[in-house]
């Protein structure tokens, strides 16, 4: 994942150099894409070869040609009867759950982190709570979420929220401490009030760092959503995998895993784009 985005950004910066766009040259983004695809091609080729020559069981461990065509065979639907769900819907449902949880967690953490930084008394009371709750893995909140919210979207969003909220709050507090004092002093010398220093300087200054933490914690949140879908919430990509297990359908399991990887990659790429567009003043790592 990290390599993929790295190759993209290197490709983009090289593409800006006019000399490289001379006729006869392969465009550098094409090279970047090619380099990103080679490892995939090698792995898939070995896998297909192994399956075709009977080294690996094509039933227990079907190759991509088998489980990808299974999606077409099953008309892009999984499950039976009324419970059947189109695969695109499963993808969208899972992605929206994680995005909703991330957005709520991000906004709440910024507010909490800024309140903690602004008030010593609030910090003394709330920081120990935050630091005590932050180490709890997102997945560990699933049983409590099911007890509190039942089976459905609120549980999935709750799990993502709990998974990112505390860690992003700590990150916001650290980012506020690290704001360049000269920016604050400059603002004050230009007549900014205390409130304006918070809203016009500290808030925009901490956004990039907290957003980067959001990206880092996205993967844990994504895993938590899938785990929640596997154990309780009755739809989404997680359910697709667990359904495959229950039906001893390895094609469905592998298809689900494939979708999980692709969707996670796409959401992360979306976060990178948001970071580039809105938080341009610090390059996305």
């Amino acid at each position: 994942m990290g390599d993929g985005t790295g190759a993209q950004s290197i490709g983009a910066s090289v593409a800006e150099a006019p000399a490289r766009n001379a006729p006869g040259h392969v465009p550098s983004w094409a090279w970047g894409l090619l380099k990103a695809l080679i490892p995939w091609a090698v792995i898939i080729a070995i896998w297909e070869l192994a399956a075709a020559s009977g080294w690996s069981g094509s039933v227990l461990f079907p190759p991509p040609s088998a489980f990808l065509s299974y999606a077409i065979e099953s008309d892009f639907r999984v499950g039976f009867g009324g419970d059947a769900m189109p695969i695109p819907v499963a993808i969208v449902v899972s992605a929206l759950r994680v995005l909703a949880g991330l957005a709520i967690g991000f906004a709440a953490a910024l507010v909490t982190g800024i309140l903690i930084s602004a008030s010593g008394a609030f910090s003394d009371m709330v920081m120990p709570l935050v630091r005590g709750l932050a180490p709890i893995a997102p997945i560990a909140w699933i049983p409590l979420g099911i007890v509190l919210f039942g089976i459905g979207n609120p549980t999935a969003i709750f799990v993502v929220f709990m998974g990112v909220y505390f860690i992003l709050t700590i990150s916001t507090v650290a980012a506020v401490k690290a704001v360049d004092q000269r920016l604050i002093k400059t603002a004050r010398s230009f007549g900014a009030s205390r409130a304006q220093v918070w809203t016009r300087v500290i808030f925009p200054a901490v956004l990039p760092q907290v957003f980067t933490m959001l990206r880092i914690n996205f993967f844990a949140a994504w895993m938590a959503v899938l785990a929640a879908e596997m154990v309780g919430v009755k739809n989404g990509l997680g359910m697709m995998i667990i359904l495959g297990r229950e039906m001893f359908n390895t094609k469905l399991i592998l298809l689900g895993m494939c979708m999980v990887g692709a969707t996670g990659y796409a959401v992360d790429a979306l976060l990178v784009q948001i970071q580039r567009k809105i938080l341009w003043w610090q390059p996305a790592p």
Partner: protein
Amino acid sequence: MKTGSTTLACQHVGKLWSGLNGTSVAALRDIEMTVESGEFVAILGPSGCGKSTLLELIAGLEPLSSGRITLDGKPVLGPAPGVVMVFQDHSLFPWLSVKDNVGFGLAMKKVPKPAREARVAQLLERVRLTKFANHRPHQLSGGMKQRVAIARALVESPDFIMMDEPFAALDFQTRVLMQHFLLEVWLEFKPTIIFVTHHIDEAVLLADRVVVMSAGPGRIIEEMRIDLPRPRRMTDPGFNDYRARLTETLEREVMRAHSEDEGLASNAA
């Protein structure tokens, strides 16, 4: 503004920084200084002599530990209108466009947008950055950034501009251009400027008066009026005289501080 009358007065100004385990470090001791309206004063001194701290005290960004600072007779208790600060690293807000950076002070005072934009356009024209109004700071060169910082400082026609080594991070060529630019702006707007630097040439080139500070704790050890006609050039015959005298003073001070340090070290051993 009346030129020639005392505007800034520092009396017995001292500043202690609290250090670890309750100890405190004296950054400034017994600073006596007056500055006249429209004067260009350079503060020269080795690194760590507290010259930046003195600027922040005058700008009302840090509280005094002792003594008194008055601006036009009124004691400084916090950031005062008409006093602005320009830092070495230009300190532009990276998330704002060039024009929003320049208009920052006006926006803080809720000046209506049309008036703000007119004034910002005027200043950008003056610093020759009109074409870059919508650029972001990271898209500009070092000299351009510093010009934006100067435009931002001038936007409210301040009486006082504090500059903390504003050109220290620039290459030689850009620095020379910026020094000339600053003088032009100063002659045009006639603010009072206090300019901190550790470059002797820069101080002699720009200032009406040079104040030399010593290190640890910062004290004023010498004041020198620069009686050279403007525009000055570093190759003027009189220039060398001032340069030599200031170099001697600074060298003596640096050696003294160094031998004191060594003395402390050998006592400790």
